[in-house]
């Protein structure tokens, strides 16, 4: 990274946080993962908990998350990130623990672990990136793929009769008593990005209070998996994903944050 200096007396109002490493991200152009990585690390930087945060990386596109986040991280087997995070949190209860998982990891192979972790009310934060396909392996159908959506394993569109309904895992988890804060966001506009950052900050603060599991879903795009340009994919997401996965809080605690 070249050294950046303010020009002609201008003051710096935004720059990459030091909790992100200088490694260029391997994600496709326009992928929402990069924004969520940055927001998580901005929150860690603002709360000054860089040496007390442990992240758990999944299998999926974000498998290399540990290369980009300058914190302690642990790689988990496919779908088992919440189980690994449970272990870390129980051994080191003073650490801030979060998992970062995609829809193939959390909602398909890891459904069991996810539901039981939230049911036990472990004091961890689960960040769930939902883009409706398995991006890493080439855009196959995921449990969250929309009805009629074309993927490489559902070339004629997802057929509800044979392939089932898209899984609303966030609504499912919001019903469990162990879940403390459940919310759904997106990162396609500056406003959405600001809202997500506030939510992540709240989730980390709830973890400090030992309240229960916080679950933040981010509806994201997958330009490569959906075969679109980044801008088209964002428009498609607004038109098709948001009606089925409406943005907003699903379970909000009654305490007032100061």
């Amino acid at each position, binding site marked *: *990274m*070249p050294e*950046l200096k*303010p*020009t002609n*007396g*201008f*003051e*710096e*109002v*935004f*720059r*990459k*946080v030091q909790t*992100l490493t200088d490694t*260029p*991200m391997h*994600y*496709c*152009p*326009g*992928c*929402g*993962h*990069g*924004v969520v990585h*940055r927001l998580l690390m901005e929150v860690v930087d603002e709360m000054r908990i860089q040496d007390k945060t442990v992240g758990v990386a999944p299998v999926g596109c974000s498998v290399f998350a540990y290369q980009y986040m300058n914190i302690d991280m642990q790689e988990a087997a496919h779908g088992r990130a919440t189980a690994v995070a449970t272990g870390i949190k129980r051994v080191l209860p003073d650490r801030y623990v979060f998992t970062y998982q995609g829809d193939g990891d959390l909602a398909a192979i890891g459904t069991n672990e996810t539901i039981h972790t939230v049911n036990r009310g472990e004091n961890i934060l689960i960040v769930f990136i939902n883009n409706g396909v398995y991006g890493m392996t080439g855009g196959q159908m995921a449990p969250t793929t929309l009805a009629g959506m074309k993927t490489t394993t559902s070339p004629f569109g997802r057929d509800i009769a044979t392939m089932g309904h898209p899984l609303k895992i966030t609504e499912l988890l919001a019903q469990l008593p162990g879940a403390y804060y459940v919310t759904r966001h997106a*990162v*396609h*506009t*500056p406003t959405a*990005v*600001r809202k997500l950052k506030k939510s992540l900050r709240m989730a980390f603060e709830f973890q400090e209070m030992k309240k229960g599991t916080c679950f933040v879903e981010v509806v994201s795009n997958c*330009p490569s998996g959906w075969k679109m*340009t*980044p*801008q088209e994919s*964002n428009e498609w997401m607004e038109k098709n994903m948001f009606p089925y996965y409406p943005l907003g809080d699903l379970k909000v605690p009654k305490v007032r944050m100061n």
Partner: protein
Amino acid sequence: MIRGTVLIAQEVCKGCELCIAVCPQECLGLSEHLNIRGYRYVRLIQETCTGCINCALVCPDSAITVFREPKGAAKKTVVVQSTP
């Protein structure tokens, strides 16, 4: 008007054009040249930037650093102009 500017890390930019779409001043555009990774990178094409940080917020690769004129500076120039 508040003046600002952006500094874009050319070798990090992947040319996804998300920042171009959210810029209210339409001051960002793609370059003619490719960067070391083979992408057309984003650069400033107009001096109308206000430093609103919209582009930096949506940038997935954290390639954008934003600078803004300090609040007092604009007022100061106005005072200097009106004194004589």
